[in-house]
């Protein structure tokens, strides 16, 4: 009996390890940006190309930056969640329209509703690269001093908003 104990133990340990491996999402790469200052940008707004917006305009406020595009399928899935979050009014959401065409982006917001205070227009994806974007949609929570506190790669879900985003926003708002 003891003869088999060790191989069986190793086998079970391996099973557990592989089982955990199956549950992990390889797409979720830990972002090195968390705890760091949000990279600087100064981009034209989507609605008014003549006006620009910068992350510096938001110093002193807790805010959410959401990267979206009209060509992005998961953004469609995420959109109602963002509309909900915007309706709660607890935190302002700003959009980064990533590698899109202006008219497509505007049409999308017109057709599906606009949860954003405003969207900025990142045509060539430069700012996206600075923010380490690789899978639209992505969402950042940025605190009053302009530090990135949370990043979500992939669509927000009602659970994530309830369990992660809102508690964090409330906590940062108190600070």
């Amino acid at each position: 009996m003891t003869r088999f104990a060790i191989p069986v133990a190793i086998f079970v340990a391996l099973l557990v390890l592989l089982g955990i491996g199956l549950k992990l999402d390889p797409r979720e790469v830990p972002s090195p940006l968390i705890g760091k200052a949000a990279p600087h940008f100064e981009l034209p707004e989507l609605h008014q190309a003549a006006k620009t917006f910068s992350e510096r305009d938001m110093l002193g406020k807790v805010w959410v930056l959401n990267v979206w595009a009209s060509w992005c399928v998961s953004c469609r899935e995420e959109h109602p969640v963002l509309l909900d979050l915007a309706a709660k009014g607890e935190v302002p959401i700003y959009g980064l329209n990533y590698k899109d065409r202006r008219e497509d982006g505007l049409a999308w917001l017109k057709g599906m509703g606009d949860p954003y205070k405003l969207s900025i227009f990142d045509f060539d994806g430069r700012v996206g690269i600075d923010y380490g974007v690789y899978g639209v949609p992505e969402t950042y929570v940025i605190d009053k001093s302009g530090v990135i506190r949370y990043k979500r790669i992939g669509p927000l879900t009602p659970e994530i908003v309830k369990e992660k985003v809102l508690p964090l926003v409330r906590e940062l708002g108190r600070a």
Partner: protein
Amino acid sequence: MPRPLALLLLVLLSAPIAAKEAAPAAADPVLEKRVMTLAEELRCLVCQNQTLAESNAPLAEDLRNQVREKMRQGRSDKEVVDFLVERYGDFVLYRPPLKTTTVLLWFGPPMLLAVGFAVLLRRVRRRRQADDTGTTDADRRRAAELLAGGEPR
């Protein structure tokens, strides 16, 4: 069509084709080679098992352009890599740096190999000992006789 004319046409028509193929590489082959060599060391984040050099994903293209631009500005390979790591983390590197979080990654496999060898060695030793069952010279002689076809028993 007379032959010389056809030949002439052929030459004239093929020239621009060849020129088009060569153009991008001729722009700056040295730089291009540097970009591609570095890109082979970097992971494309969209299709994670491809390198930045191989991938056709739009993001990979953007990142290659960034690498090219930075190199054109005279940045070193290390500076370019740091630029990407700052944004995407060590994950973009196919050769992750040695850190406390990557110790297992670097030394796990050799350690497993060493453990395997140790187990094997112990087994072999034990078997050798088990083989020493106290056969005497007389036994061996008898066995040899039997094998040589000597009389049974």
